[in-house]
């Protein structure tokens, strides 16, 4: 049967070219199931609630049984089968016209032939255990390097194709580096590899990379998509949370090569192991990556329920490639999972302590201030009763259910506890037909750009059939034979001749197999978002090798983080944290890092098994205009000048190779030289532009130029003139005499005594702000003269911390207001007209404030005025235009299509 499956998939491709496969028996899984699944099962499938007219086509006994004297399928007699009569009905065809679905002539022909051949059914391939097939015979016996290649080559030979030659050494080392560690190879490693004539040089390189600490960073990034990892809670307020220790655990787990079964068990149920270690508890953060809703008036149970449902759906997706989530409202329409079975799975996850609480408890205290979210099982007396939710509504409970696994699969292990630990054992049981297949397919897809099963997220009836079924099964059985050793699996794949092929393609080959499903060439895909960024930093020499730790905030455009009810600000991290690998970038669900999202990184709201790759002009904008790309270019240009000596062509070659690894061709060098000349000529006419190109970092990091023109109260006692009674018209004008006003130091206000924390809540550390002048009335007027040290100050901003409304004037011109009520620190850009009045020397800041309706809480106002001092660019040098022209060249190199492509 397996053999036929392989042939079947082959026909999938052949059929476009040559539909003449008349002698071949029609196969249910290959030919018929996709037609029925796409067109019929929604109304005539396993879900009895949506079933129409009592007709069921996914099950032979039902389909061939008699109902009201009619039979949907009469084996051996298509003409007498109601199904055929209806799909060919001239006026009322099935599927109904309004569904927009229609069987093609060819599909109708296939269904007829299948019925005439006796309508044999087969069970869905993915629900049968993988079988280790003997290696197929091949003609080109010199080509295969390992078992993978026999399966690939047999298929190619059947298609009349030949594999591509091995890629050159430069391409191979770049491909291996990008795939295994997510970074480009350093130049020294490239030269060493290219000149390494030892027969096992490739194998040595693979070992070296599998043992690199960056291996864990690369593969953890893949896992974070599945785990819907983020550093915030999601939903409305999307407040920040600390669960990054789990992310670090994943990186270490990959580096330590934790076997996949252990990796699974610790994440799903580490807390249920006897005397779990701290690490085993951290691992359970996997399913604590669900979202928490802080919005006022929400029912905690509603969102606890949403989190549990998400855990069931995510578990089905990640480990078994099945869309269990569909069954929360109704029986699955295509796959064997009833609604009742969904809630039996739900019951495994329904006994944990977390319940959509504001403090995200339970949490584990690590060192000092660091905590991380973990799973903890409820004590026996608090266990919840799980019931089916009718129509998926948690407020509408139906029959009670007990934890169990879907009946269509292998039974739950007899000796396993009916909890998450038992479920984890069932998932990684070697009888599970899907776990190994789904895992190897995922590794394959990240290396080749597409899985052997293209629909990584769906191995069920609606999923795509595997392009190489026998290879998929061989890899799955091999993975289990290797005791779930992930590095060993990766090693096996990258050592194959299939992986080492050149990815260059002739137009004929592209026309024949545009997406390289036949594997007649090597992988060639746009790099993942993280690698696009990391590579740019690495090539220029900016990348920080620092691993682990709290998420960092690299440069991002201003104003991207604006979330309702939130005081959290994006403040660019200092020092090397600006240049960390993308995996350490802060992930906020409602406001993900824009450069990564543009390259198709997910937001962490839902489990993402496969990123859909897009090509958009916004990606071009990111790589062209992200100031970080320019900074990388200027760094790269400086690096080239430092490392490549004085000869023009040596420099050009060096720059090219730092980015693209391979040596350039003459035509490429010529074109780059022309660009250099044009840019140099232009920049020699524009020295200011040249100096900006040379030192972009001095311009783009606003934080580094930030100066407190009027410091806030935290910096010390800043003196103001103030009044609590209406001063009358003109008080905000520079000419106004405030000599009769009182004088006092900020803060102005009062601090109320704090209530003790409520039962079960953690005590918050509270440092009351330094009130220096008492203010307890409703309104307050403030004036202060401030000094601007010199010319070129820009981007004046007011930072006001106040619960109430306020208006601000600078030099008598309206400069800004709270707009609506401010409930915390608010940053207001000084209005352009007011900013235009600010001169070096003395200026006047005037504020009128009105607090929120009386309450017994704190009341205070803290005002600061900041500005960016002009960038301290280095004094001009005679060779500025030349050096800046190199930046332009480097910028182009970083933007080349080949740069963002794995090939």
């Amino acid at each position: 049967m397996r053999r036929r499956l392989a042939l079947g998939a082959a026909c999938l491709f052949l059929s476009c070219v040559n539909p003449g496969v008349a002698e071949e028996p029609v196969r249910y899984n290959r030919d018929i199931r996709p037609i029925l699944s796409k067109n019929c099962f929604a109304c005539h499938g396993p879900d009895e609630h949506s079933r129409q007219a009592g007709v069921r086509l996914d099950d032979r006994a039902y389909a061939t049984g008699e109902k009201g004297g009619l039979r949907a399928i009469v084996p051996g007699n298509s003409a007498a089968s109601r199904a055929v009569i209806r799909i060919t009905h001239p006026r009322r065809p099935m599927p109904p016209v309004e569904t927009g679905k229609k069987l093609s002539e060819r599909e109708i022909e296939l269904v007829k032939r299948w019925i005439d051949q006796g309508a044999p059914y087969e069970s869905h391939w993915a629900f049968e255990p993988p079988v280790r097939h003997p290696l197929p015979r091949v003609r080109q016996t010199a080509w295969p390097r390992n078992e993978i290649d026999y399966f690939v080559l047999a298929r190619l030979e059947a298609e009349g194709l030949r594999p591509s030659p091995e890629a050159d050494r430069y391409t191979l080392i770049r491909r291996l580096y990008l795939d295994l560690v997510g970074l480009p190879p350093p130049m020294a490693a490239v030269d060493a590899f290219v000149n390494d004539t030892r027969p096992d040089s490739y194998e040595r390189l693979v070992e070296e990379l599998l043992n690199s600490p960056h291996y864990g960073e690369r593969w953890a990034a893949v896992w974070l998509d599945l785990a819907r990892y983020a550093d915030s809670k999601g939903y409305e307020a999307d407040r920040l949370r600390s669960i990054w220790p789990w992310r670090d655990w994943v990186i270490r787990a990959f580096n330590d090569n934790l076997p996949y079964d252990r990796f699974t068990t610790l994440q799903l149920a580490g807390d249920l192991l006897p005397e779990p270690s701290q690490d085993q508890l951290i691992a359970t953060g996997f399913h604590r990556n669900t979202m928490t809703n802080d919005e006022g008036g929400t029912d905690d149970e509603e969102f606890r329920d949403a989190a549990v449902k998400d855990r069931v759906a995510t578990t089905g997706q990640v480990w078994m490639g099945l869309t269990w989530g569909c069954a929360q409202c109704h029986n699955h329409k295509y796959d064997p999972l009833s609604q009742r079975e969904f809630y039996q799975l739900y019951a495994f996850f329904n006994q944990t302590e977390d319940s959509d609480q504001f403090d995200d408890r339970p949490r584990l205290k690590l060192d000092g201030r660091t905590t991380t979210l973990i799973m903890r099982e409820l004590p026996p007396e608090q266990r919840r009763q799980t019931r089916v939710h009718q129509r998926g509504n948690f407020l509408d409970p139906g029959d009670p259910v007990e934890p169990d696994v879907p009946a269509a699969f292998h039974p739950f292990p007899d000796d396993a506890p009916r909890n998450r630990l038992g479920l984890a054992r069932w998932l990684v049981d070697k009888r599970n037909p899907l776990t190994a297949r789904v895992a190897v397919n995922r590794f394959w897809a990240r290396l080749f750009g597409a899985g052997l099963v293209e629909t990584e997220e769906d191995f069920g009836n609606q999923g795509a059939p595997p392009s190489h079924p026998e290879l998929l099964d061989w890899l799955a059985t091999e993975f289990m034979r290797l005791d779930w050793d992930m590095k060993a699996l990766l090693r096996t794949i990258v050592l194959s001749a299939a992986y080492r092929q050149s990815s260059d393609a002739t137009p004929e080959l592209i026309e024949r197999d545009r997406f390289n499903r036949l594997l007649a060439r090597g992988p060639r895909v746009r790099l993942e978002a993280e690698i696009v960024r990391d590579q740019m930093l690495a090539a220029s020499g900016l990348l920080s090798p620092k691993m682990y730790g709290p998420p960092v905030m690299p440069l991002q455009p201003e104003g991207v983080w604006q979330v309702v009810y939130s005081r959290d600000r994006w403040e660019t991290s200092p020092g090397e944290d600006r240049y960390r690998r993308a995996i350490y970038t802060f992930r906020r669900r409602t406001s993900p890092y824009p450069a990564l999202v543009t390259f198709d990184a997910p937001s962490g709201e839902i489990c993402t098994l496969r990123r859909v790759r897009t090509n958009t002009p916004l990606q071009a904008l990111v790589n062209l205009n992200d100031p970080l790309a320019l900074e990388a270019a200027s760094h790269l240009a400086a690096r080239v000048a430092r490392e490549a000596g004085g000869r023009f062509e040596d420099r050009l070659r060096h720059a090219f190779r730092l980015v693209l690894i391979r040596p350039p061709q003459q035509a490429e060098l010529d074109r780059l030289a022309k660009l250099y000349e044009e840019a140099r000529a232009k920049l020699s006419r524009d020295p200011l532009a040249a100096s900006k190109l040379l030192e972009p970092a001095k311009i783009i990091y606003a934080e580094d130029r930030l100066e407190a023109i009027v410091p806030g109260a935290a910096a010390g006692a800043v003196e103001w003139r103030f009044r609590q009674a209406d001063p009358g018209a003109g008080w905000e004008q520079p000419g106004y005499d405030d000599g009769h006003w009182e004088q006092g130091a900020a803060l102005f206000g009062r601090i109320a005594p704090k209530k003790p924390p409520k039962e079960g809540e953690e005590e918050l550390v509270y440092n009351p702000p330094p009130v220096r002048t008492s203010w307890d009335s409703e309104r307050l007027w403030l004036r202060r003269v401030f000094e601007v040290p010199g010319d070129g100050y820009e981007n004046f901003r007011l930072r006001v911390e106040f619960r109430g409304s306020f208006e601000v004037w600078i030099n008598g011109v309206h400069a800004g207001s709270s707009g609506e009520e401010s409930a915390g620190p608010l940053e207001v850009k000084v209005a352009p007209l007011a900013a235009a009045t600010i001169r070096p020397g003395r200026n006047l800041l005037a504020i009128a404030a009105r607090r929120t309706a009386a309450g017994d809480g704190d009341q205070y106002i803290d005002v600061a005025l900041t500005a960016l001092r002009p960038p301290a660019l280095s004094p001009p040098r005679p060779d500025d235009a030349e050096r800046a022209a190199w930046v332009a060249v480097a910028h182009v190199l970083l933007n080349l299509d080949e740069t963002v492509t794995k090939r």
Partner: protein
Amino acid sequence: MSDRWELLRNQTRRYFLRSCSVCLGGLALGEFLGYAARAAAQEPSAANPLAPRRPHFAPKAKRVIYLHMAGAPSQLELFENKPALRKYDGQPCPQELLEGKRFAFIQGVPQMLAGQYEFRRHGESGLWLSELLPHLATVADELTVIRSMTTDQFNHAPAQLLMHTGNQRLGYASIGAWATYGLGTENQNLPGFVVLVSGGKTPDAGKSVWGSGFLPAVYQGVQCRSEGEPVLYLNDPPGIDRELRRTTLDALSDLNRLQYEQFGDPDTLARLGQYELAFRMQMEAPEAMDISREPPAVLEAYGAHPGKMGFANNCLLARRLVERGVRYVQLFDWGWDHHGNNERTDLRYDLPRKVAEIDRPVAALVRDLRERGLLEETLVIWGGEFGRTPMRENRGGNYGPYIGRDHHPHAFTIWMAGGGVKRGFVYGATDDIGYYVVENPVRPHDLQATILTLLGLDPYKFRYPFQGLDQRLIGPTDEAKVIRDLIA
């Protein structure tokens, strides 16, 4: 094999055969792009997923401007004239209206609260409008008012998600994303789906309300900003001007071509095209976003002030964008959550201020579109994510000095104009206190089905395969109704 992959594949193959020979023949890039732009077909092209595509049937509306008042404006102060509610003002709310209900803040038994403003009839249609909407009243005969909107979400974030993505949970595609996925966009130099935000904050549900969910990221809304660069990463970085940019792009393009000749990857050509599009977007987007180019009379009509952030400016921008072929413009205006827990959320003190911010620009937008002949094919929609209670909110069980209303999912009002909907028409009705819909209820899925239909897309057939299901904006069941009565 899923439909989508098959379609993309075929499309790409045809595209490749054509474009490959064009480019190798050394013809100009413009022709190469021109091909992509002309390729109108039902399925998106992998080379240019935003190229215009034919709808399922002839559309009434070609573009949409959706004005969302985030926080949920009070229908009882703006559109619903309920004299009966005045009678019950201050009386305790009957128990049967409270039983089994969940409120965000109301506790115990709240009092009924009369509408705070006078209503009058306007236009030939005699549409009831509150005294707070004098400008909207002048275009009353252009509007279709739906008084019978109802939702099942009573919190902002899930309710906004339901209105825009058809699902209260995160991870689904917004209508704008669906529209650009289905129809592409007319102007390749601007994003196809633009989002403009005012009121100082993004909506409660964050960027997910204009997200692409499971659709490719290319269809997500692009937030254009009136401060800083209009589109993220649109401005040239320091030291690079247009001349130097053109010089570097020419080099980039030549080098990419050399690489294409060497390696034969058709994606190289697609990406080469994207760089040219990006270059043109850098030219056109700032121009489109610059309202200072409008004559003073237009600025005056909208109440717009160049350089100042705000809803009026965004309305004018919306007109400039649809005029330039943008498919879907989504405005969010924050600050409509009038709970009455302080002066700034009081129905008497703050609502008039908030309404005044939008009344003039919205009316100007409708009139401006009409005068330019754009209204016929531009669907304008105005509304919030739910309504507000006929009861006065009693946060913490008490009444303070301020007046407001709590979240009310059972009934609210939205209106539409242009784009093939009836003029001067009222649809649906609520009971005499505005608590429940009593006639022609319209759910978010019904509204979405109707919007898609107006755009020429069949809401039942328009789908995207994801996670084993044919995902649709209107959800998996066929309960959503196209409200044919709204369509002219």
